[in-house]
């Protein structure tokens, strides 16, 4: 047995290095053949963990807006500049407009043309964001789509669907959950999810 070797140090029959990509593929094959790993289940695990922590930058922006009324005013007036104050900017984050969810208005973001996404603040777009069915249906029947996603919006609340484009990337400022008014920015950050920043989820108190 040669467990002391790095995976990188193995050589194939012709003396070439066998890289970790091939060893990984080999291991996945062996584990799958032995019934120890189901590649489909594995895909789900990867997707879940990849984004489990959530988009920290977007969460920091929201937590600051919740705890600092002056920052919130700047954020709603000039999103790009206010987000840049916290040091977040990037090729796809240049024209961010922040819209606030309130007791009477619920904003939800979609990109009907492609899948424009403010990734410097939101991180990786979730798979459903690129799904043509989501894109088409959320415009046509947003209340129903939101409800299917577990985000109930009362009949007395107006839903505004924000269509992202090359010019404007939308970011939703979710409502701060009741009972969290006394929490600090640091305590609020972990509560804020990606889905809430796209407007397909509410944020609940811890």
């Amino acid at each position, binding site marked *: *047995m*040669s*467990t002391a*070797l*790095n*995976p*990188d140090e*193995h050589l*194939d*029959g*012709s003396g*070439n*290095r*066998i*890289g*970790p*990509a*091939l*060893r*990984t*593929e*080999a*291991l*996945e*094959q*062996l*584990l799958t053949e*032995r019934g*120890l*790993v*189901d590649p489909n*289940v*594995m*895909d789900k*695990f*990867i997707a*879940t*963990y*990849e*984004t*489990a*922590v*959530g*988009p*920290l*930058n977007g*969460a920091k922006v929201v937590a600051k807006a919740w705890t600092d009324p002056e920052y919130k005013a700047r954020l709603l007036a000039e999103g790009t500049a206010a987000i840049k104050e916290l040091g977040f900017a990037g090729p796809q984050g240049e024209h961010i407009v922040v819209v606030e969810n309130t007791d009477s208005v619920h904003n939800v973001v979609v990109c009907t043309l492609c899948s424009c996404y403010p*990734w*410097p*603040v939101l*991180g*990786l777009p*979730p798979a*459903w964001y690129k799904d043509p069915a989501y894109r088409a249906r959320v415009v046509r029947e947003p209340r129903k789509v939101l409800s299917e*996603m*577990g985000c109930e919006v009362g009949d007395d609340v107006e839903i505004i669907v924000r269509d992202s484009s090359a010019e404007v990337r939308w970011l939703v400022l979710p409502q701060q959950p009741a009972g969290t008014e006394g929490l600090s920015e640091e305590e609020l950050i972990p509560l804020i*999810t990606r*889905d809430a920043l796209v407007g*397909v*989820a509410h944020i609940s108190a811890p």
Partner: protein
Amino acid sequence: MSAATNLLDLDADENSAPPRANGELVFAEPWESRAFGMALTLYDSGLFTWPQFQAALIARIAAWENHHPEGECYSYYTQWLGALEDVLAGDGTVFTDEISQRAEELAARPAGHDHRDDEHGHGHGHGH
């Protein structure tokens, strides 16, 4: 759609925490996410405990820091894969030599075979 409950805290130990950007895991190449997924799936099915895997990972990282080929860049997921191999070999689930043999077979696939493009070092000649 929202984060599932009962997820492992991958960042509990700062010496073995995975690389992240904007809070999310960063996979530089596709195989890294497969290696990641295998460990999490096997842990979930109870093949090993997380502390067991974590100890193997910490040992791998320490060993690399202690000694590595000159000029070799640190790769977190290479250590991760090594740790997974160690744990699986340790209880006889999959032996290191079996992996090497299968990897050799994969490397010997004819040029033009539709394998992933993230492999390097074995001189296959098809371009994309």
